[in-house]
């Protein structure tokens, strides 16, 4: 689960050998310990408790206390189509949003890389969606923007033949994904922009001198240079987008039917609607295991380009 990449080898700081005495080793470790201990306590303890509850039958809508039922919750997780559906939807939503946001991000970064009148204003406008509170964005999109009767989008699309379309009914998943893309494209754009602006100008000049056209330069020089930035954006974006909850809760509450129920919302409903703590815990444990598997694959895929940078 990597992710640091450095293109130019960093200045090596010479660590003067101070001897490998235990005191020195502890001196090295000491600054790390507070954060490490804190993280272990706050993240691992809840996971262990989750593991514990996954073997219990524990409901919040009856007064019966929690009792041990072995692997029964896990059996339900694997046989219940609801979990599989939520999983598939999570994947679809994340992959679509990440890919589209990145494509748009590259496009916008290229646009903003050139000088034109009011460039900084345009950049400010484009990054604003990322700064809007996600639940606020979701509520505004669901109401004033996409409402079938009174929404702005329907009004804007009227000349194109759209007539009071109920977006959150007929295109629920698309609407939620749209909001995800709207909020995260600026993030992708900023990362790619940093990459564009770090491109050494002399190689571009040389290409121009050699007579290379704009498209060729982009394809053969710029894109490869941007690759680590793009992969960073994809990785970071995926981590956050797979956990999207606000948009689903505020726009569609997982509906219509279960059309927009992703994993976070499914877990939320298990706890707050079915009050099935044991079942939710088992679902959670399975989700964590799946995440670890996926992350390991992701690490392998990006390992070639990502290297840990040495101090």
């Amino acid at each position, binding site marked *: *689960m*990597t*992710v*640091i990449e*450095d293109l130019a080898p960093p*200045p090596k700081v010479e660590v003067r050998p101070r001897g490998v005495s235990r005191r020195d080793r502890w001196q*090295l470790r*000491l*600054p*790390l310990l*507070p*954060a490490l201990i*804190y*993280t272990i306590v*706050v*993240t691992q303890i*809840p*996971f262990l*408790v989750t593991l514990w509850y996954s073997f219990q039958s524990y409901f919040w809508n009856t007064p019966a206390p929690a009792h041990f039922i072995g692997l029964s919750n896990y059996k339900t997780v694997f046989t219940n189509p609801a979990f599989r559906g939520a999983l598939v939807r999570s994947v679809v939503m994340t992959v679509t949003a990440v890919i589209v946001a990145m494509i748009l991000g590259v496009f916008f970064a290229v*646009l*903003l890389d*050139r000088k*034109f*009148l009011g*460039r*900084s204003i345009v950049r400010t406008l*484009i990054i*604003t*969606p990322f700064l*809007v*509170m*996600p*639940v*606020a*964005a979701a*509520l505004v*999109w669901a*109401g*004033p923007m996409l409402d079938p009767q*009174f929404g*702005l989008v329907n009004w804007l699309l009227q000349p194109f033949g759209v007539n009071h379309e109920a977006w959150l009914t007929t295109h629920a998943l698309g609407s939620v994904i749209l909001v995800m893309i709207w909020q995260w494209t600026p993030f992708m754009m*900023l990362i790619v*922009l940093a990459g564009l602006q770090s491109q050494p100008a002399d190689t571009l000049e040389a290409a121009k*001198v050699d007579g290379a056209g704009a498209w060729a330069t982009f394809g053969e020089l710029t894109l490869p240079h941007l690759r*680590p930035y793009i992969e960073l954006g994809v990785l970071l974006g995926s*981590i956050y987008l797979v956990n999207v*909850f*606000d948009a689903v809760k505020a726009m569609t509450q997982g509906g219509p039917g279960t059309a927009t129920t992703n*994993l*976070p919302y499914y877990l939320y409903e298990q*706890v*707050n609607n079915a009050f099935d*703590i044991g079942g939710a*815990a088992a679902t*959670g444990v399975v*989700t*964590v295991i799946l995440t670890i598997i996926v992350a390991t694959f992701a690490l392998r895929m990006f390992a070639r380009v990502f290297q*840990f*940078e040495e*101090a």
Partner: protein
Amino acid sequence: MTAVPIRDREPAALRLRRITGQVGWGVLAWVVGIAFFLPVLWMVLTAFKPESAAQTWPPKFIFTPTLAQFRLVFSGWGPYVTHSLIATTVSTVLVLVLGVPAAYALSVHPVPRWRDGLFFFISTKMLPIVAAIGPLYVIALKTHLLDSIWVLIILYTAMNLPLAIWLIRSFMLEVPKEMLEAAELDGAGRVREINEVILPVISPGLVSTALICVIFAWNELFLALNLTTTNAATLPMFLISSVPQEGLYLAHLSAAATVASVPVILVGWVAQRSLVRGLSMGAIK
């Protein structure tokens, strides 16, 4: 062979094409910018409408603006914004206090197994917090932290710490080795090294890291919704509660959404460059 500056040899027709191309890109960029900003603009506009003007067909652009919705929002938001401010600020400071030494121990004078350390921190970010929400509730209840601002502070710190460590570490790696060597020659111990050499140099990076932590903590809904009720409810919960069961609400909702988002938007606008730097760290130069 020296290249003759291309511009000097550019014929008029080509130059015209180049300029129209530039203008074309500029116009396209403006169109994109406005399109992306439009929902935010609509949100702010709707916030100034009376409810009757907020639900019309066709949507109204001309109307008599009113501050009534904002008055409603400000009369109700007091405890929520206080909780948001406390949770965000304290957790961000805690992140920096924990993160700076940890990043130091993973970069400048790294522990022997620093790769594993970094792995571990990043891995906690990959595990979805939603998986543990029921047990988190029970833990919070048993430790008397339920509906306390501390439960949010603790969890937000854990939520932002991995990203912060990673970012701060990248900034620390940029500190020129000459400065570090000079400090060492001077006989500086670790603490002085951090205080007098590293921190001043990376302070812009600390600012951008703090900014990102503030954004994520301020906007967080899931944990607040599940673990707080009245004594620690934050602004996102105020927003959700402004959707009434049986009544009109679009204008009021827009006002609440505007008020909730404006702080982070303003901060993000002002600190754009910092934000860019922070977000692109990790894939440097």
